[in-house]
Structure formats: structure tokens, C-alpha cells
């Protein structure tokens, strides 16, 4: 799965928790919490959804570092997720 595909997937989940947010304006290194006004519970439910969709485990030490689009995409890329078609 390419990085742009991963970004697309993350954005899909962001849209479902923050439907009114303008994701076009979101920079890859914007801190998601403040940029989209999502809190830790929103973030948590999104990460649960992503981990379930891609069947990837997110270790505790990584979880805390996932703060923006870039870090999430990089983490997923490193985890070697496969596109589940």
C-alpha cells in the first residue's frame, strides 16, 4: 500500500469522526487534535478502526507518537500493511 493510499485511508477515518472538518486544509504535520478539534477518545476510536481495517497492532510506545497524518502514515508504512482488496 502506497503512502498516498494510506493517507487516503486515514483521511477516510478522520472524516467519519470529524465530518465537518476541512481535510483539504490539513497539512501532513498538523497536530490532529488541535487542527481538527478531535479529542483522545475520537483519536482512540479512529486508531481502533484503522487497526481493525488493516489488521495491524499498534504498540503502546508507538501509540503516543502518533500525532499527525505523517506519523500515522509512516507508522503504518513501517508496519508493512498490505492493501486489503
Amino acid at each position, binding site marked *: 500500500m502506497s503512502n498516498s493510499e494510506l493517507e487516503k485511508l486515514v483521511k477516510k477515518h478522520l472524516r467519519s469522526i470529524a465530518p465537518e472538518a476541512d481535510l483539504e486544509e490539513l497539512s501532513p504535520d498538523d497536530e490532529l487534535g488541535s487542527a481538527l478539534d478531535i479529542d483522545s477518545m475520537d483519536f482512540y476510536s479512529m*486508531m481502533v478502526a484503522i487497526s481493525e481495517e488493516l489488521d495491524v497492532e499498534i504498540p503502546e510506545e508507538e501509540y503516543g507518537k502518533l500525532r499527525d497524518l505523517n506519523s500515522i502514515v509512516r507508522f503504518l508504512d513501517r508496519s508493512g500493511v498490505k492493501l486489503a482488496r
Partner: protein
Amino acid sequence: MGEFVMPSLGSQMEDATLIQWLVKPGDRISKGDIIGEIHTEKGDIDVEALESGIVRELRVQEGDTIPVGTVMAVIDSEKGLPPEHKAVEPESERKVEKEVSDERESELAPPRPGPPRPGTERQEPPPRPGPNGAGPKRVKASPLAKRVAEELKVNLEEVTGSGPGGTIHKKDVETAAKEREDGKRPVPFDKESMRRAIAAVMSQSNREIPHYYLEKDIDMKAVTEWLEEENSSRKVKERLMPPVLMIKAVANALAEVPELNGYWNDGRLQVQESIHIGFTISLRRGGLVIPALMNADIKSLDEIREEFVDMVMRAREGRLKTGEIGSATFTITSLGERGAEKVFGVIYPPQVGLVGFGNIIQRPWSSDGMIGIRPVMSAVLAGDHRATDGHSGSRFLEILYKELQQPHNLSHQTPVS
């Protein structure tokens, strides 16, 4: 025979609107089943059956707005009725009918089945398949509204009705058509009424409750480290988060300082035996709801986690259950992840206490004669000075502090000390 009444979801709630029934007469229900959906100022709420049995009668129409305490449904309890109870049924039914409809003429009413004879099986209509067997929601629109909707090609199911009980009238259809043209879709969420509800309850609190505030910074090193360790072996979905520990720690502290766990009613403190921890959840579209985690003192961390996550999700979807709203005995508010370090909360009447947690931040901290950097969180207790004094509050914060120093003990179900 049990009567199911419109529940009160807080001292400010006067009435609510039935959105839909999910059961019909003859349905067999179990305690805890969702039997209907109501719209309140606090959002849309699922109502739960309080007893098992068979739905005998639905007294309230979908769309009706009715005061708290109104009988909504009559449930025949599972165990069956004592024979003498059955004998009185027709009379009580007649009486109610008279109250409900003054001009309904009894001779025109369809014949009602008589009281069941002892020994004969009661004829019940077959239960509907599935727990949510209700058909599609009927749209109540005036004939003119329907005609106009056809002309303007408006789907009536997407129109918000302004009439009594949400009936749709011509202007509603026109408004919907106009909004469609303007490209904005109406938001069903009633922000204004929630704002009004918050305004009313907070004004009451500030007007009536003499608040006192006590503040204590809590060293969160133990909690943070314990969570990291605990979570390293858990899947994302099963991870514990700080609020879960806080709910548990607060519940344990309340068990030790019961005078903070209660209601101020009729000029006196009524200590509550059960500990139901309300926690504020802010909604994306504005406003907040405070569902309660019931009996948090006797639940395990995992039970609390599961319920907490579920409730937060449902709160944001407007799908809280009646039992979860308005039954808190104490409230936690937390602005945690948003910049503010301390929160001086406003007590939710008739409760007598509330604790506000700030953000966990790295701060210089002296411990064992050394200064180090620690994750620190501020806890501010707001107490109702009519019900308790600073001494109780102080004890509460002290116990809370201790609880959060021994997070491994929180996973036990009993308080530390």
C-alpha cells in the same frame, strides 16, 4: 401489571418527546431492552424497560411531548398477575380512559377483551421477530404538505416537522426545499435547546449552591508508568486510558467519604449508597452530556473501560440510554487534553460534589528531597458547602491522591485503605 412512566433524566427536565416505539402491544420484553426512543433537551435517548414482561398497552403516541412521570406504557409482568388483581383491571382501565380522553364515547370503542379467566391461557399476539421489530417510521404530513412536497420534489422523510408532535406542514416542506437550494442541510441536533438546558442547570447551581474549591496536584508518574506497562500487552482496542483510572479512583475515594456522594434535596443531604460517576462528554457540535458509569466502585477497570468507551461513542451519536442520564451521584469533569491546566467546575444539582481534572503535564516536582520532572495533574474539588465542609473535601483529595499512587491496586475491586 407495571406502568412504565416517562423517566426523569435530571432535575431540570420537565418533558420529552417520544420519537418512536420499538415495541408494540403483545411484544415480550426483558428488563434492559430498548423499548423506545425519546427526544430530550439532552439529546435523543433510548429508553430501557425496567421490568420483564409483555407490553400490554402503549399509551403515548409517537411524536407526543409528555411530562415526566406520565404513564407511557403498561407492562404485564412476566410472573403473571394474582387473580384478584385481574378482577380489578377493567375498572382501572375505564378510569384511565376517562382521564385520557374526555370526549371519547365508550359505546363507540371497539369491544375490549374481558379479564382473562383463571386457568385459561391468555391469548397473546405472536411476538415480532427481532428485538427492534417496529416498522418504518410513519411520516405525519398534512395533505397540503404532501402535495407541495410532490411539487417541489422534497422527500418528506428528510423534512423536520414543526407541528405538534413533529407533524409536517407546508412551510416545513418549503423550508426544506429552500435549504436544499441553499445547499445547507438542516442539522437535526437541537443545539439551542441543549444550550438552554445547560444554561438552566448551571444557573440554578450558581444561584443555589455555595461552592467551595480545594485543589491538589497529583503526581501521575505511577499511573503513567503502570498504564504503559499494562497497555504494552493489550491490543489497541483493550487499552486502558487515564479517565478509566480516574473514574475508578474517584469512586473508591467516594466510598471512603460518602458524604460527597449524594444529593441535596429538601434542605438536607441525602447520601447515596450506590456510586454512579457522571463524566462530562463534550459534543463536537457544541454542548455536553453527562452519562453516568453506574456502581463504579464495585466494577473492575476493564468493566469500566468497556462501558466508558461504549458510552462516549454512543453519547456522540446521541444514543445514550435513560438509565445513563441523570442518575450520577457525583461528577468528573476534565478538559484534559485541551490546554487548560485546571478546571474549577460547577456542581450539577442536586449532586453535592464534582472533581475537575486538568491536563497531565510535565512539571518540576520534589519528592524524597529531590527535585525531578514528573507528569502532574491538577485535581480541583468543588463541594456544596451546605452539604459538606472543607474537611470532607480535603479527605477526599487525599484519598484520591493515594489511590492514584497505587494504580495496580485500582484493578482490585475494593478501595485501598
